[in-house]
């Protein structure tokens, strides 16, 4: 599972935003989940990770984020092992997991205020605009417990849109979304890439990203 690195002049390496996985091996119990995964994603690129259930997509994303420690190999951010400055790497990272990180007893606006507000100073208008952007303004004042799974996902996307960081790691960001919502995910990723960001997304179906910078990595089950 090795994707050849995009050729780039050595002198650019230090200034480019590059996320690199080098020979990642991860074991969960007696399962060898990641077997020497290597790739390189530069700014303006999106790596789509595919594979059957249990192939290790989530484990790979969690390893890239620094939540999981691989038994072998390393993750590099701008040519530095992320373990050298994990907090610094996390300041450049947005990660959305399987479940939208929302509190069911808070409204969508309150959730974004506390979730994104923990990282950056936000104006109320930032939150309102972001919710409008993802088509969530009509239910922004309702407690999350009253929303459907797709509506919750849109609120999470509003949070993602508020994060001005170069690295996006997205685990099934289109789950529970209708076709319009899926297309919105593609648009958000594309805009992120155009701003010079990079994304790694685990998505089963076709990602509606029009950019030519889309690459794919298929994980095979053990």
């Amino acid at each position, binding site marked *: 599972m090795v994707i050849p690195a995009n050729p780039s002049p050595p002198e650019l390496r230090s200034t480019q935003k590059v996320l690199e996985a080098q020979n990642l091996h991860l074991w969960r119990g007696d399962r060898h989940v990641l077997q020497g995964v290597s790739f390189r994603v530069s700014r*303006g690129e999106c790596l789509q990770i595919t594979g059957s259930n249990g192939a290790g997509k989530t484990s790979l994303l*969690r390893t890239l*984020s*620094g*939540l*999981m*420690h691989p038994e072998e190999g390393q993750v590099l951010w701008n040519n530095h092992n992320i373990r050298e400055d994990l*907090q*610094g790497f*996390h*300041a*450049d*990272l947005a*990660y959305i*997991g*399987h*479940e*939208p*990180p*929302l*509190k*069911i*007893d*808070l409204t969508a606006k*309150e959730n974004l*205020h*506390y*979730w994104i*507000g*923990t*990282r*950056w*100073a*936000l104006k109320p208008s930032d939150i309102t605009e972001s919710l409008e952007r993802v088509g969530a303004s009509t239910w922004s004042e309702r407690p999350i417990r009253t929303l459907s799974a797709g509506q919750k996902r849109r609120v999470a996307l509003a949070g993602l849109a508020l994060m*001005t*960081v*170069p690295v996006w790691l997205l685990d099934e960001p289109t789950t529970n979304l209708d076709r319009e919502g899926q297309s919105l995910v593609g648009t958000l990723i594309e*805009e992120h*890439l*155009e*701003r*010079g*960001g990079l994304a790694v997304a685990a998505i089963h179906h076709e990602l509606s990203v029009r*950019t*030519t*910078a889309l690459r794919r990595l298929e994980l095979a089950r053990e």
Partner: protein
Amino acid sequence: MSDSIAQAATAVNGSFSDRARTPRSGLTAATLALTRDLRLAFRKRGQLIQPLVFFAIVTTLFPLAISPELSRLRDVAPGVLWVAALLSSQLALEFLFRDDAQDGTLEQYALSGQSLSGLLFAKTSAHWLLTGLPLALMAPLAGLSLGVPVGAVPGIVASVAVGSVALSLIGSMGAALTLGVKRSGALLSLLTLPLAMPVLIFGARATELAIKGESYGAPLELLGAVAVLGITLAPLATAAAVRVNLE
């Protein structure tokens, strides 16, 4: 994407430096984590009053079970108050990090670029504000029902307030260690109760001296020392345990 397209796109949408938001300081982030927990707690009031109701029930039932004789109740009051306070603070511990682990909030805290120990300390502070502080305010009422003289009230409030800080911090470590365990209540108690013994001993001693009208400074200072030790070390241990559980 070619360089020219990338530059054009950057001009339209703005680069990261153009759009960069002001990062939160660790203190502001921790304050937000604390206020969020307080807001959530007040929306789930049933869970909020559970430890207080338990404390009230235990301290009210003791006189019925032992004897209504005030001098006898006064003798057992320090033990009753402190055992009830200890068990009450344990009640809410199981839920300290559980919801946050399930809905991905802990993950977001760990990946926020903020100090995880700082954010978890804020959560533990919220736990103390919601259980320890109300227990400290309620303890004199329970004490009076056990025949404690009014003069002992400041000593009781001070010892329960300081002791409950230590209990919350010790409990946060246990709650973090047992995050991955279903129905972790028994294991949590097994882990935290031995560590809470000094708090129980010094707290009961301070309360006893306050009831007798003697100086309770020494045990109170020892309680304070345990609390300071907890403030210094517990958030680091809690953060390490949470990281292990997030793997």
